Structure formats: structure tokens, C-alpha cells
């Protein structure tokens, strides 16, 4: 049973290993002569004009909230897709109702401008 997850294990080991190797290689191979300017946060080579840690505007929160909602919608497709052949047409209609109701919400969001990025 668990053998099915070996590819996932390999993938996560590769991903973690890649990150760690990169850090290790940079640390070991490069010269390390820090100065005030070098330790400053890098922003396209420009001198920073304001502290980098700032409060994010609330619009990020709205986007994250909407992402979460549509993510939940998306997750419910997985078990449905597995048994769709067994459910036949009624199963299709069932999901159609769900998606159509949410489509109303999507249209509402779109028209209300929730998906446009305010400057």
C-alpha cells in the first residue's frame, strides 16, 4: 500500500535535497566577506527607499480568500471524478448544479470587480 507513495517520497527528497544542496554549495564554495551593503535586502540593485517589511494591503487577503473558496470547490471534484462512470448522467447533473450555483458567485465576483487588481 505504502509503496504507491514511493514516487512522492522521491520527489519530496529531490525537492528538499535540491534546496539544501544549493544553500550548502553557495555557503561552501563562495567567498564570504560581508559588508553593510551586501547584507541589505536586494531590490534590483537600487538603494532601498523604505523598510521592506510593510503591511500588505487588504486586497491580498480578498484574493487569498477567493482562492481558498475555489480550492474547496476544486477538491470536491476528486471523489466525483473517481465514481463518475458509476454515477452516470445523474451524477453529471448533480455536479452541474453545484458548479452552476458557484458560477453565479463567480459572475457576481467578476462584475463586482473583486478580481480586478486595484492600484
Amino acid at each position, binding site marked *: 500500500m505504502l509503496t504507491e507513495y514511493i514516487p512522492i517520497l522521491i520527489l519530496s527528497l529531490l525537492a528538499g535535497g535540491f534546496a539544501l544542496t544549493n544553500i550548502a554549495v553557495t555557503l561552501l564554495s563562495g567567498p564570504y566577506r560581508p559588508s553593510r551593503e551586501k547584507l541589505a535586502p536586494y531590490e534590483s540593485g537600487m538603494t532601498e527607499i523604505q523598510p521592506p517589511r510593510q503591511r500588505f494591503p487588504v486586497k491580498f487577503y480578498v484574493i487569498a480568500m477567493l482562492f481558498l473558496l475555489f480550492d474547496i470547490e476544486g477538491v470536491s471534484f476528486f471523489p466525483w471524478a473517481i465514481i463518475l*462512470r*458509476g454515477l452516470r448522467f*445523474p451524477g453529471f447533473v448533480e455536479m452541474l448544479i453545484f458548479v452552476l450555483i458557484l458560477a*453565479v*458567485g463567480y459572475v*457576481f465576483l*467578476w*462584475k463586482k470587480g473583486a478580481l480586478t487588481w486595484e492600484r
Partner: protein
Amino acid sequence: MMLVVSVPLHVTLADWGSILPELVVTGGFLVLLLADAFIPVRRTEVATGIALLTILLAFLAAMNLWSHGMAASLYDTVSSDKFAVFFDFVILVSAALTALLSPSYIRYSHFDPGEFYALILASAVGMMFMAAAISLMVIFIALELLSLALYILSGFERSRPESQEAGFKYFLLSSFASAFLVYGMAMVYGATGTTRILQIATCLGHGAGCSAAASASPLLYIGVGLMLVGFAFKVSIVPFHMWTPDVYQGAPTPVTAFMSVTTKAAVFAAFIRVFNFALAPIESHWYGVVWALAIVTMVVGNIVALVQTSMKRLLAYSGIAHAGYILVALAADNALGQTSVAFYFLAYAFMNIGAFVVVAVMESQEGPVGDEIASYRGLFYRNPSLAGATAVFMFSLAGFPLTAGFVAKYLAFSAAVQAHHTDLAIIGVLTSLISIYYYLRVVYVMLRRPEVPGVQSPPTPAAADLAAWIAVAGTIGLGIIPTGFLNLATQSVTAIRYIFGLP
């Protein structure tokens, strides 16, 4: 190898027909959203019109269901029995009164009318499904639907910090209570192996393959306790009532009016289905706790109400006290008790929303101080009709004869006596006597001579005026000729008891 196992789905048109009132309101909700998206509903009248039309259509559908319905449908998750339909009536009447009361407030506070009414309707959908739910799953999701809409509505007045505080406080505390409820439901499911209310009752009565072990497992009792906490929070029963005054005071007044009645109605309907029916076989185990909660709620609600200076806080503590009276009827666990809960909410819809109509009118005329009881001074001389209506609501909430409140309380307490819980009835009557003081204080303040004599109030907005008169008519009508409505309540309870094989 692709193995196709057939998974038949059985849903008929009759299934959908049995939830027609809810579907109508859902439809109205979606129509309002689309209308708001495409033709931004700037005019409050348009949104109010769509909302009222939806409520009217749903009311007609509910009346139709009353004569034809009464079947469990959609895989036994919702029932269209008369008990559910009766609560549909209560919720729809409350929603209609709220829709009449809201327009002036919406204009005054610059709300988006489309979103406002969409949320009211969404909340009503949740409430109606909660009252009709015969599966723990539907109870939970319907509760979340109604609560989520109400959290947003409570914080809808973004320009006022109190409203934001109310929305946030309600959201945090109430979702914590929802967690208790759903955790309890999971445990009850673990112990009984079903989420259906009828089957839980069968299982706990040692039928349907359940042995005595199921009704003796600690899991069941932990689950029942957690569910009790969840329900008690939602209907603001002491000691889970702390949120009520702050939220009632901070939320926009039409929202407070709506939620003060309908949330309690919907949750109590589910509360009755779960505790009086599903958990009836283990009544001796939960009775003591409910008994204590009812007494504490009646005593604390009424005593703390004595010292309030804000009308909305007074009505919040009054609401807590009324939750206590209703809990007495639930603890009675008999047909009369359930009938009185149903009737109580019909009466409560008129008298309590009526009282909040007055608060909303006062706030629109006097600004935020309109919430202070002191600002009611001399109202009889400034605006006699509004003061008269207020007096009717106060008398009814206090339970004076010839008002709806009297009949409701009388029924609740006689149910307790009939079930040999005379102690609860006596405490109920005694605490009602305390309540007379704070209700009549409002009437007394209105009768005092105004500080500046001869000033007349500006005219009441027509829609709010209509809501007030409907509420007065309902309050007095149910008080003088309760028989017809009582008959409906009895029929609704007979229907649900029949399903569970009770007389």
C-alpha cells in the same frame, strides 16, 4: 483494468418539490446576486421588492407544502413535515418584517442593498433547511450557512467600529461553538453509526442492530454534551450568552431584529429534533443539564436586564430570558412543550421584531442616542402611535394577558407542569415577574413629560410604519384569538411526533 461499479443516484422531482420553499428563497438569493452584478441595484426599492417577492412566493410554496407535504426526502436528509413548514412560516414572516424595516436604514448607512438582501435571504435559506433537517449533516451545514451570512451582516456597517466589533466577535465565538457542535455530531455518529435523526432514535432504543453498548458508550455522552454546548451557544443560553448583548448592540438594527428571532427559531427547531426525538431514549441523562441551564438562563437574563440603559442590550438580555422560557418547554419533552415552542416563536417573531422596529425608527430619528432608553422620555407626547406600539410589545414581552407573549409563556409553563417539572414552571413565573419591572420601565419613561415640551417627532418611514403595525396586529391578534394558530402549531407537532411513533 477499469471496473465500472454502478452508483445509482435516486432523486425525483417530488424530492425537489418537498423543499420548494427553500428552493424559492435560494432562487431569489441567486437572482438578487445576478441583478446586483449586472444592473448594480443602487435603488433600495428594487432590492427590497425582489426580496419581498421571493418571500411571498416562498410563503405560498410553504402553504402548498403544508397541505401536501410530510415526507422525508433527498436520502432522508430533509423532511417537509408540518413542523418544518411551521418554522418556515415563522422565518418568512420575520424576513418579511425585516425587509420592510430595512430600506430606511440601508439608505441612512449607505449599504449595498443587493448584497444586504442577498445575505438576508441566504441566511433564511440556512434557517429553513435547519428547521427541516433530519440529518445531523444538514443541521450543521444549514447552521453554517445561516451563521456565516449573519456574521457578515453583523459587521456590514463598516463605517461604525461597533458593527465591525460585533461581526468579528460573533464570528470568532460562534465558529468556536460550531466546532463544539460538529465535534459532538461526529461522536454521536461514531457511537450510533448514523447521522439520521430517526435512526439515532432507533439505535438508542436498541433497535436497528444497535446493542445496549451503543447507548452506554462514553463517546455518545461526550458527543451529546458537546452538541448541547453548540446549540446552547447559538440560542444564547447562559453561560454561553456572553456574545449576545455586544453583537445585538453592535450589529445594524434590522440585522439584530432578524437574527434575534430567526436564529433562535431555526436552532430550537433542530434542538427539538435532536434532543426531544433523536435523543429521547436517553432523556434521563440530558434532562438534569437542560434543567439547570434553563434555570440559570431565566435568572441571569432577567436580573442583568434590570440594569441596562441601552434598549438593544435590554432586548438582548430579554432575548436570553426568553431562550430560558423556551428551554423550559424543551425540557418538558412532551407534545404540549413542543407545541408551545412552535407557538412561542410565532409570537416572538411579532413582538420582538416589533420592538426592534421601534429601536430602528428611534435611531433613524435621533441618531445613535435613539438606542438609549433615556431618549424614549416623553415619546407618548412626541409620537403617540409609536409609543403605543412600543407599549404593546413591552406588555407582550413581559407576558401580560391579551397579548401573544402571555399565551406563549402560559403554554410553555403548563407544558412543564404537565411533565411534572413544576419547579421549572415556578421559577419561570417568578423570573417573569422580575421582567415586568424592566419592560414597564420603558413604558414609564415614555410616559414621563418631555424635557422640551411640544416637539413632534418627524414622521416614521412608511415601510417601517407598516412593519410596526403588522407586528402590533400579530401581537394582539395572537393574544386575543390564539386558537387558530395554536391549532396549526398542534398539527405541526402531531406530524413530527407521528414520524417517531409518539402520540
